[in-house]
């Protein structure tokens, strides 16, 4: 099985030097947010690793996640990482179609049962028995359950497969759910984001290849090395937050000076992701650097968490009318109750027995 030989053998065949590989590992360590000193040790481990089989299932999704990955700013690195895995099924990328495509999935499942990695993007609709999304006549639910059985681990790429994402937004007509809502007996890594940062996907794959394990995860099963801190924690505009300097509109002096976007609805403080350091488009920028607040796309229910432009400290519902109503009701009840209580006092006064000295 030539496709699954060790990496060093393949590199040697391609005439890639160890120094070049070390450089690649340095870049990888940087991607994985590991200390740069670990590049040498990674090179050692990676050289010996076998190429695992990967099955990629796309469900109720927009292909944004795949786009993010394939339009990654590091095409050479990307290809190197894809060289390290055997992508046996990905219906957007593979050349095969129809029955041949499905057969390659079935072959991989049979040959590498218990060892292959399952990557999922897109949510799984479960209303109406899952009829809202089917591939080759089978529902996503059915495919996921079948393919998950033999997987060593599942990597949920994007917010849809991680948490349900936009298809799951109210009123959620298709009953879209996350992978973790269906598969409960397999290790799952959620790489959330809409789309997720491409290097995070490759970083997790590299971690699996290097160490043979899944990275350390947070309580939402996201890799801590990328999702351990919030955008707010690592934002270069944080000092302005601490000084109370806020942009009030998108074109005021504060906005021009690059002040904090909290009051314009930035969800950075409650959003765990690596955008502020890894950035997008080859390290060019990230939303806040471009002058727009964070939408919180890597968090569950981000689409339903109120307006993108409502500050975190403001209510997500309109309470003005309610407050007025409650005040009027309070006044009304006070009028009613005080009238009852005045009667009570009045009755006590009516029942008053005139006091005489004999009562003393």
């Amino acid at each position, binding site marked *: 099985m030539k496709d699954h030989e060790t990496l060093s053998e393949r590199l*040697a065949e391609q005439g*890639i*030097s*160890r*120094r*070049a590989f*070390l*450089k*690649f590992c*340095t*870049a990888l*360590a*940087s991607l994985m*947010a590991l*200390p*740069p*000193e670990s*590049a*040498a040790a990674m090179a050692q481990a990676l050289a010996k690793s076998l190429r695992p089989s990967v099955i990629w299932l796309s469900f109720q999704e927009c292909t944004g996640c795949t786009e993010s990955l394939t339009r990654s*700013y*590091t*095409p*050479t*690195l990307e290809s*190197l990482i894809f060289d390290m895995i055997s992508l046996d099924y990905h219906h957007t990328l593979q050349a095969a179609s129809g029955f041949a495509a499905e057969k390659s999935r079935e072959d991989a499942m049979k040959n590498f049962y218990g060892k292959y990695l399952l990557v999922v993007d897109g949510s799984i609709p479960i209303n109406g028995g899952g009829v809202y999304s089917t591939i080759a006549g089978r529902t996503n639910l059915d495919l996921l359950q079948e393919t998950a059985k033999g997987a060593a681990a599942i990597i949920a790429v994007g917010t849809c497969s991680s948490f349900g994402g936009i298809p799951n937004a109210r009123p959620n007509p298709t009953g879209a759910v996350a992978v973790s809502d269906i598969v409960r007996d397999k290790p799952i890594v959620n790489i959330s984001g809409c789309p997720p940062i491409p290097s995070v996907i490759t970083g997790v794959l590299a971690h699996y290849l290097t160490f043979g394990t899944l990275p350390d995860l947070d309580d939402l099963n996201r890799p801590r090395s990328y999702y351990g801190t919030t955008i707010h924690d*690592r*934002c*270069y*505009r*944080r*000092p302005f937050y601490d000084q109370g300097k806020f942009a009030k509109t998108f074109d005021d002096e504060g906005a*021009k*000076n*690059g002040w904090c976007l909290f009051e314009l609805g930035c969800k950075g403080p409650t959003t765990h992701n690596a955008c*502020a*350091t*890894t950035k997008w488009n*080859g*390290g060019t920028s990230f939303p806040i*650097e471009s002058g727009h607040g964070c939408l919180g796309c890597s968090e569950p229910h981000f689409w339903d968490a109120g307006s993108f432009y409502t500050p975190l400290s403001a209510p997500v519902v309109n309470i003005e009318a309610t407050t007025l109503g409650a005040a009027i009701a309070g006044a009304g009840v006070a009028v009613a109750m005080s009238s009852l209580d005045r009667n009570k006092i009045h009755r006590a006064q009516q029942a008053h027995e005139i006091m005489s000295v004999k009562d003393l």
Partner: protein
Amino acid sequence: MSPQSIPIHALTEEAHSIGNIRALLTEIASLLDKLDRNNESGMIDLNSLPLAPGEYEKLRLALGRGEVSARIDAIGPSEIIETHYPGVWWVTHYNVEGDIVADLLEIATIPEIIKSQPEDMHAGLARLRTRLSEVAE
């Protein structure tokens, strides 16, 4: 509207200075001190830092250029520059497209990537011996 009519505002120092540069230079000094005393080398991954726009350039200015510079060609170029402070190296790896894939400050007598790797030396030795045997024949 002519280009001349667009007002130009010079950004003040404070507008983007959030104090990362001073913190970085302090860390570099402490790593350099370790190298000097214990011969321990160290690295700083510039990609993992939340640098504000302009701070990268400021760091470049602060560190300057020293005597040594080197270039490696291995799946894209790498640029190694000794800064104005001997022992502090700026190592930038590019891919074939010219994008930066890793950007490091390495505090060492010689950056690791410049050294020849044992595996490459083995392969090279083998190639040299083959060459010699061919010449002998």
